[in-house]
């Protein structure tokens, strides 16, 4: 097979090809490394390429397969978001403050992937500490979306914070990628790049070794080319881990077995409050098409109400910065990462953190410290936690009537790099449809569902009950089949 036909495979197609010995894991890794070397100067999706390690892991995989000892992901070439600590491989969270940090341990999620035979191609770009929706807060500079509007050369954002993961999958620079989602950071970039993104139930994937942003919201998940690929990858990523006290001690189902199952008779809710006044007509039309597709597949569609939806983003912008200001207190320049000099200890702290953190991270640390400070804690932080409960209660009530919810993933298609950096609130609004599930801890999936009039991909989101990813994978599979989304970005890189 040619190199481009290898990188064009789905994860499932590659597993089948490896099993049938049509190509080796080494050939598969080499084809991807070649594609990365050519594309990365233009796309900036990888912040670190690990070709030697990739080829060594691939050769070891070929040896295991030859010995009849292949794991469920054996030989699969993956990109890893730089938020995951990888032992002996620089991990930066795209922040200057971590500098050349080389973790002496492996995150549980990536350890699970290597256990199952996967191969690491490199570390993927992202917004600094996963704080951003456009990849523009990365210390390594933004990722460029492989998609361009028809007739335009203007560089677009791949979304964020998992922009490197989404762009790499869309441009065939890996078979699939790990990502994380605190307010929409898997699903929004998936929608912007025509890929599938899954944020599982809070607690499905261990947070051990994932650089912390907002611990009560952070959750790892896959970005992949198809719903089935995402299901296969999530099964390997997930599982109970004693090193994360919020990791759930529950069985990990064979998620892929749910893809392709009939969705006949499932009740799908369409929340009234997600129909924003300012919603572009194309997004509203796509949402209506999604409803028709699921109806056609035998689902019963119901209108539901989630009355506190509009308060989800402001709640998030209290809860997430509060947790971040606490989590990021560890970056003090003493034990690892950057250290800047100062006249006394306090100045060393202040100078280190001023030099190491980018503007958006500083903004969020200040908001967090403000809402947690004496006199404001009750008015802001406790208030937000109470509204968070209201938002979760809305979902509980809706799920008495329906099995899942269908919404758009993002309020727009990919926008141009530079367009929204000067207006934080406008940037935050990207996550208006995705942030609710993080606050409630629920699983959500973004499925590519169509192109807008300028030829850019748009996604639809499915939200499910806690731990009911199975139903979501069945519905996502039905949407994927009905939408028959096959478009790929035309390579310009």
């Amino acid at each position, binding site marked *: 097979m040619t190199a481009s036909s290898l990188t064009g495979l789905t994860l499932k197609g590659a597993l089948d090809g490896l099993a049938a010995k049509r190509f080796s894991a080494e050939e598969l890794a080499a084809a991807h490394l070649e594609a990365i070397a050519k594309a990365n100067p233009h796309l900036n999706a990888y912040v670190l390429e690990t070709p030697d390690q990739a080829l060594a892991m691939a050769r070891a995989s070929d040896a295991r397969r030859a010995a009849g000892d292949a794991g469920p992901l054996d030989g699969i070439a993956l990109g890893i978001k730089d938020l995951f600590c990888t032992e002996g491989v620089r991990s930066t969270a795209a922040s200057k403050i971590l500098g050349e940090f080389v973790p002496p341990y492996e995150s549980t999620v990536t350890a699970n992937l290597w256990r199952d035979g996967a191969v690491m191609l490199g570390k993927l770009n992202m917004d600094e500490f996963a704080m951003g929706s456009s990849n523009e807060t990365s210390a390594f500079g933004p990722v460029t979306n492989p998609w361009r509007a028809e007739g335009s050369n203007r560089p677009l954002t791949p979304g964020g914070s998992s922009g490197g993961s989404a762009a790499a999958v869309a441009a065939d620079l890996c078979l699939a990628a790990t990502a994380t989602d605190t307010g929409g950071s898997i699903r929004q970039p998936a929608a912007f790049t025509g890929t599938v993104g899954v944020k599982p139930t809070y607690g499905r994937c261990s947070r051990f070794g994932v650089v912390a942003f907002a611990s009560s919201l952070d959750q790892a998940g896959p970005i992949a080319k198809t719903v089935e690929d995402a299901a296969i990858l999530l099964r390997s990523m997930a599982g109970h881990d004693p090193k994360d*006290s*919020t990791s*759930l*001690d529950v069985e990990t189902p064979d998620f892929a077995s749910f893809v392709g199952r009939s969705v006949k008779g499932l009740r799908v809710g369409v929340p009234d409050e997600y129909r924003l006044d300012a919603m572009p007509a194309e997004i509203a039309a796509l949402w209506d098409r999604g409803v028709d597709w699921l109806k056609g597949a035998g689902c019963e569609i119901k209108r539901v109400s989630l009355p506190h939806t509009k308060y989800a983003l402001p709640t998030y912008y209290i809860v997430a910065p509060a947790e971040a200001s606490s989590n990021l207190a560890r970056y003090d320049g003493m034990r690892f990462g950057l*250290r800047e000099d100062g006249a006394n*200890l306090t100045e060393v702290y202040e100078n280190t*953190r001023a030099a190491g953190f980018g503007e958006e991270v500083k903004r969020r640390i200040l908001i967090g410290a403000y809402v947690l400070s004496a006199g404001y804690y009750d008015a802001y932080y406790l*208030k937000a936690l109470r509204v968070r409960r209201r938002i979760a209660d809305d979902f509980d009530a809706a799920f008495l009537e329906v099995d899942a919810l269908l919404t758009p993933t993002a309020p727009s298609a990919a926008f141009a790099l530079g367009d929204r950096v000067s207006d934080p609130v406008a940037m935050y609004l990207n996550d208006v449809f995705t942030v609710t599930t993080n606050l409630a801890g629920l699983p959500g999936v973004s499925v590519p569902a169509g192109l807008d009039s300028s030829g850019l991909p748009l996604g639809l989101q499915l939200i499910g009950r806690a731990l009911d990813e199975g139903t979501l994978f069945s519905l996502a599979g039905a949407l994927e089949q009905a939408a028959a989304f096959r478009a790929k970005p035309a390579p310009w890189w």
Partner: protein
Amino acid sequence: MSIDAATVKRVAKLARLAVPEVRLEPMAQELSTIMAWIEQLNEVDTDGVEPMTSCVAARLPMREDVVADGGQPDKVLANAPRRVDNFFVVPKVVE
């Protein structure tokens, strides 16, 4: 609520972030815009609502209070900005 430059200075001190004088006023305006947008939370009636600190209902797991890991000073110190033997070297704390 509007945030002024003095508040930014105070909060930045709490967060151990050096913010240059010229940035205090612009930062105050940015944060005020964000906090003004957040004010809409006051519209929500939350009387009697228990604050939600976690979306996991499970109880915190317990384990035996024993040493489970350790004895790896080189790994612990591998990323130290400065070290001597098995110690982190930090700025002088006590005069």
